[in-house]
């Protein structure tokens, strides 16, 4: 080992130790209390006044600790109770505390949903708590919270292939499956997972064109209603925090053959709808031509 290499190695390990020391001691600084300032400092009371909010297992929010792509952060919410006529989750509020508009959306469920699970993808603008609050039919509130490290989701540009999203705006696709991924006639009455995909740029209105110095106006899906044989199973009132080409995963109970209908409205007043035939005996879904 030459003198120079040895010196460099020495400097290297000194530096490493220094970095480790600094990182370890300052790592504990970001406490939950600090992270929750936006929530405790106003958001909570604005939406829920002084109502009691329990933190328990009634719902569980799953979010990645670090968002690999801040414009497409996958979030899933799992309900701790089945949807029965006696007791069910009526509404789930979803917040990203530090987004320019913290309320991502309100999602409504019914006993016909079978299970009030929800999956979707969000834009997350900066390091922020993400929280889901469920309201049961008897008016109780339950919360689950997670912390996501992401940055630039709301002002992040559209995907590189934005021409494709624009050309097919309003196109929808429905996927329906058994939970196990296999088709079994005996599972007819079990809740089944449905995914609704909507081609839409879902522009946040926060993306500036550096040449014109104008912000591209907000343009996003604001309402989604899904029913099965005329019975409402899922409704979403959403903001621009939902990612481009919105995708929603939810459950419903197909007790018989029937039509799954999705009706979507965006901020421009455009309406899109799709109807799908669900055949519970085979588990197959065919788009109506």
């Amino acid at each position, binding site marked *: 080992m030459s003198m120079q290499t040895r010196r460099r190695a020495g*400097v290297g390990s000194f530096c490493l130790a220094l970095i480790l020391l600094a990182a370890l*001691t300052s790592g504990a600084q970001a406490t939950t209390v600090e992270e929750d300032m936006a929530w405790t400092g106003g958001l909570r009371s604005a939406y829920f006044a002084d109502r009691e909010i329990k933190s328990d297992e009634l719902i569980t929010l799953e979010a990645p600790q670090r968002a690999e792509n801040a414009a497409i952060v996958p979030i899933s919410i799992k309900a701790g109770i089945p949807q029965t006529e006696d007791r069910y989750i009526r509404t789930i509020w979803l917040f990203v505390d530090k987004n320019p508009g913290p309320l991502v959306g309100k999602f409504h469920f019914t006993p016909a949903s079978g299970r009030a699970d929800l999956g979707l993808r969000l834009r997350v603008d900066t390091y922020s708590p993400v929280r889901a609050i469920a309201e049961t039919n008897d008016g109780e509130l339950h919360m689950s919270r997670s912390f996501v490290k992401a940055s630039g989701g709301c002002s992040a540009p559209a995907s590189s292939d934005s021409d494709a999203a624009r050309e097919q705006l309003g196109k929808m*696709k429905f996927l329906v499956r058994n939970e196990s991924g296999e088709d079994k006639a005996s599972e007819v009455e079990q809740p089944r997972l449905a995914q609704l995909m909507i081609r839409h740029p879902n522009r946040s209105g926060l993306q500036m064109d550096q040449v014109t110095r104008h912000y591209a106006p907000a343009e996003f899906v604001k309402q989604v209603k899904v029913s099965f044989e005329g019975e409402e199973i899922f409704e979403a009132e959403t903001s621009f925090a939902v990612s481009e080409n919105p995708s929603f995963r939810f459950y419903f109970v197909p007790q018989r053959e029937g039509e799954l209908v999705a009706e979507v409205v965006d901020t421009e007043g455009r309406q899109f709808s799709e109807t799908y035939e669900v055949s519970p005996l085979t588990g197959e879904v065919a788009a109506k031509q």
Partner: protein
Amino acid sequence: MTAGDRWQLQRLLLYSTILCSWPVLTSADAGLQRIADGVYVRPGRIAVVFEDDSIANLGLVIGSRCAAVIDTGGSVAEGRALYRAIGKLTDVPVCFVINTHVHPDHMLGNKAFQRDHVQFVGHRKLPRAVALRAGTYLQRAAEYSGGVADESQIVLPERTVSGEVQLDLGQRILILRAHATAHTDNDLSIVDPQTGTLFTGDLVFLEHLPVLDGSINGWLGELDQLMGETFERVVPGHGPVLAAWPQAGEPAVRYLTELRESTRTWIARGGDLGEAQERIEVSRPEHWQLIEQYHKRNVAAAFAELEWED
């Protein structure tokens, strides 16, 4: 711990980080390596964008009347260093700055070349991409450097390419080709027929894991076409600059093909995006660096594209 202590510690962290990265930052210079007659490359380092501003391979092709620069680096300082290195090498003036695509490591150095006789050239879709993204890129760069985002640093292409365009450098022609959406929606490749050199931009990655910001299907299609053609040598956007063709395209093709297949399988099974990001692995990790930084992101991009396939 008081706020003061915390500030002290943060400062310590900052200083020690700077001190420790110093030997790395000075280990490469803006040195241009000659790879063929009149063709030079400033090799980039395999590193994460913004954490280092010299990560892309930058090119220079010199004709009798004009020189053309292919990509300008990740900062104005980086662009200036390249400009000075060119000045030491040749008296032929730079007439063209060609940007292979919108990413910051390839074009944030443009400002250093903004002079009367220099024309900036890019893909037909590059101006829109720059308009929408450059502000975010400058902010990110400023966050890393501790400086302030200066939007006057944004330089748009004045001349755009659809299909193919030839640039005359004087006794030397460059062929610029605009590609369909692949790595991004604004990829341009450059051929110097005189020496049989292909500058692929980020259509080809070696060692640095490919980064998907366009279309996985489109990218594999463009690579398939390029790999059917013959070149003496290629300069990838990232990785060793004297790569043989078409072998140099193969690692990226393998990675993208396997990513596409496993993502399609995942979608067909009804898996969701979050699980897919956790579960889909890189099949030949020994070929790649920066897997940690880019693979999950690639899974998300591939998933969002492929779930719309019929």
